[in-house]
């Protein structure tokens, strides 16, 4: 890749460009932090205990309204009335009246929290490794007075992970149990949802033992509903809608510039183009569709898009660094990087398979999760560990390459003064480009990590009864980081597009058309040469360059 725009840009223009990007970055962060609400909210719904002596899986049991079910307040009362465990239907309507669900909520997760009371009485203890068997029906309706329609009806088993943290005064206290994942819906297309849960006492077909007999004495079931906030969806999609055309236009501009060079495009240019294309695909605000059409696979799709972007980004880093290695090997072919790229592809393929298994099956059965069964758990862990190993090896290789580049740079530095002018300028261009890229990339990555930690820390110290702070750090983190990677891609597109100016390229300094051309060695100030010889040679180069410019 001969002379990029970056090398031929004056300091003034470059700083102006960076300042613009910085402003966009701050705007992205502020929009998320000040305008958008938290990304998601959780609603703790206490289920109503309905009575159904007929054990009917056809009927719906609603906690409120004109068709409210026959209720029982607590199990003491149920015992007095001679009600059996099989008759109890735990019912939760989502959301609470008078609200309705909205399509902008995008996804809905259900989590089951069991309040299991401690009891001294015989047979009321919670067995270790107990599992609870649930018969769950999930229904929906879109009108206030219509009948519920069945979405799914399943028979699921979940392992209970409970501890009893108290040592004295045990009676009336609850076990502390891990929330149980219940279901995940990839789209919230309907206005009302109804969840009916039963914990039947039946003979297990496989073992012949009675189900739900060693789960202690549950007192209440809470269903926690988690969904994306409508406000966050609006802000998020607005950012996407604005980013999409901008990045797309710059991509087109970049590719036309590459084409008008008059020579075949090099690998690095093609890689940047591919990165930009994938960024555009990620930016494409497809989620607007969910407002009109039911798209249950949207979360799967956005996971895949995000994975593809990261895979591309990692490949881009490898190729960029490889192309700046400055040893004498001729690269410029994807084949050279096949091992690294393959490891990246494999990493994301593992994660892809895992995601398809998890979310793909959830399209059919929202109550499915690989984590719920021992086999699935091991499989999921295997995928994730495999992906982790690949990613680690990738990182090690990347670091090794960066180290090599820096080693080569210092070697070249030493020999720079003895080189022919054209060659020297070529190498100086390479070094400058590389350093700028390194600083920019490392800054972006560091900021991502800092934002993430900050949002976790700032949100973590929430206390009950305190008013929610006016700044939503998590939302700010999301929009900020999203904006940042867009800015990163835009900066790479603009700064590393081939330049039309030939001064800094290998054309032997014949064309000194750009009178304002400046070779600014001060920008990568972090790596300011300390070796006096190198420093001297660089100033010399600079003087030479300005000389040619004034001629």
């Amino acid at each position, binding site marked *: 890749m001969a002379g990029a725009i970056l090398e031929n840009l004056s300091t003034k223009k470059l700083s102006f460009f960076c300042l613009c990007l910085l402003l966009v970055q701050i705007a992205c962060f502020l929009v998320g932090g000040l305008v958008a*609400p*938290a990304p*998601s*909210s*959780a*609603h*703790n*719904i*206490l289920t*109503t205990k309905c009575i159904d002596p007929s054990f009917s899986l056809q009927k719906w049991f609603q*906690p409120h309204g004109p068709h409210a079910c026959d209720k029982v*307040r607590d199990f003491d*009362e*149920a*015992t007095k009335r001679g*009600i*059996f*465990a099989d008759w*109890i239907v735990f019912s939760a309507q989502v*959301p*609470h*009246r*008078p*609200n309705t669900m*909205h399509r902008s909520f995008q996804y809905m*997760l259900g*989590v089951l*929290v069991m309040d299991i009371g401690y009891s001294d*009485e*015989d*047979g009321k203890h919670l067995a270790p490794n107990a599992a609870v068997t649930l018969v769950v029906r999930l229904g929906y309706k879109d009108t206030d007075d219509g009948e519920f329609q069945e979405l799914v009806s399943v028979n699921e088993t979940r392992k209970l992970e409970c501890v009893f943290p108290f040592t004295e*005064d045990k*009676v*009336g*206290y*609850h076990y502390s149990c891990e*929330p149980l994942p219940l279901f995940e819906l990839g789209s919230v297309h309907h206005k009302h949802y109804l969840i009916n849960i039963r914990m039947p*006492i039946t003979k297990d077909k496989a073992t012949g033992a009675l189900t*739900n*007999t060693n*789960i*202690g*004495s*549950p*007192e209440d079931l*809470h269903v*926690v509903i*988690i969904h994306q*906030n*409508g*406000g966050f969806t609006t802000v998020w999609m607005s950012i996407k809608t604005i980013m999409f055309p901008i990045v797309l236009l710059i991509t087109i501009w970049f590719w036309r510039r590459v084409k008008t060079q008059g020579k075949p495009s090099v690998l690095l240019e093609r890689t940047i183009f591919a990165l930009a294309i994938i960024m555009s695909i990620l930016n494409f605000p497809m989620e607007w569709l969910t407002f009109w059409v039911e798209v249950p696979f949207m979360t799967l799709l956005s*996971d895949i898009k*995000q*994975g593809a972007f990261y895979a591309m980004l990692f490949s881009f880093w490898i190729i960029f660094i490889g192309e700046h290695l400055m040893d004498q090997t001729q690269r410029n072919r994807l084949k050279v990087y096949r091992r690294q790229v393959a490891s990246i592809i494999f990493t994301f393929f593992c*994660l892809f398979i895992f*995601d398809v298994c998890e979310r793909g099956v959830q399209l059919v059965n929202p109550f499915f999760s690989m984590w719920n069964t021992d086999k699935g758990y091991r499989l999921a862990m295997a995928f994730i560990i495999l992906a982790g190993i690949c990613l680690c090896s990738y990182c090690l290789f990347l670091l090794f390459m960066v180290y090599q580049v820096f080693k080569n740079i210092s070697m070249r530095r030493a020999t720079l003064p003895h080189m022919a002018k054209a060659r020297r300028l070529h190498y100086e261009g390479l070094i400058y480009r590389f350093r700028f890229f390194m600083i920019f990339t490392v800054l972006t990555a560091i900021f991502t990590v800092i934002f993430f930690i900050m949002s976790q820390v700032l949100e973590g110290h*929430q206390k*009950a*009864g305190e008013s*929610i702070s006016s700044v939503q750090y998590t939302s700010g983190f999301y929009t900020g980081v999203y904006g940042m990677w867009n800015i990163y891609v835009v900066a790479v597109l603009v700064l590393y597009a081939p330049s039309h100016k030939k001064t800094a390229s290998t054309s032997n300094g014949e064309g000194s058309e750009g009178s304002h051309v400046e070779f600014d060695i001060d920008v990568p100030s972090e790596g300011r040469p300390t070796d006096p010889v190198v420093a001297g040679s660089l100033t010399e180069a600079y003087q030479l360059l300005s000389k040619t410019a004034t001629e």
Partner: protein
Amino acid sequence: MELKVWMSLCLIFGSFAMRIGHVYASGMWWTLGTAYTFAEDQIFDYPCRRIPGFQNRQLRYCEQNEEFVPTVAEGAKQGIDECQFQFRGRRWNCTTIEGDESVFGKILQFGSREKAFVNSIFSAGVAHSISRACSRGDYIGCSCDTRHQGPADNPHHIIPNATWRWGGCSEDVEFGLEFSRKFISPKEHWTRARVIMDRHNDEAGRKAVADSLELKCKCHGISGSCELKSCWWQMVPFRRLGAKLKDKYDSAAEMRVVRQSDPRGRVEVLEPKSLLYKPPTKADLIYYDPSPDYCRLDPELGSLGTVGRTCNRTSDAIDGCQLMCCGRGYNTIRRQVVERCNCQFVWCCKVVCDECVRNYEVHTCK
């Protein structure tokens, strides 16, 4: 069925209607707790104007929210039950006195430690039961509060569904706490020691609820990572609140009443009696009248005495016969009872047991 409930209510409370005076406003609504039963399809119907001691602003707030009264009653009942559980082995054991409008008799007319506890457990009970009812979706009024989380263009006019859609609603427990505050402790009469004490202890009860909330979280980022995390508050069982307030009762701060003159007239202020101890915080209970020893029956003080109470012969604590009977000694009776044993429990409501005969001794105070 409804008629029967009404009749019994009339019987219990018939006498109050005439006697609604100014004796002490706080506490008489507790009668709701004794009237409350939730059984089958009985409807608990208890209009606000029949609640003794409710006047002006409090009555208005109650009438605006009359649908909540059954839940308030449930909370009061919960408070009474918890009080009796926590004080089961004490000389004063939270006995309710039938036909008494302050539920526990005259003892609560003083600014005693016991009154401090009862105030706090009731306000906590109301906050707790209202929060639970809201979290069950029983009432339309509390499902989404009016805290504005959307764009701040018009903070006064809020359409619940818009707030809900934009950023979700705040926790039900906050509604419960606010309801308990408005229903129990109206902003009136700040100048009397009794009111200051009641309000402080009411608030301490609510603070116990707020402080004991547990934050639970669920990670739901890509592949279940914690990149995305949602959290919610969970209330602890009421038993734990009761135990916590009982601790506060044991370490309650004694105050003294200081009378000051003020442009509004004479004003009473409470100050810590002893400067050796740290001044009470908002979470601590305060009182200013010493409690009697509750050993003998004293109708003037409202003490029932401990004659006839069962005690534990082997205990050295307050439930032991020595302390419980105030040194008067005790009677021992041998009893034979048929008890349930070797029970098999099926999670909700079915217990299959054997019957066992057991002999034991009952000790009662002389």
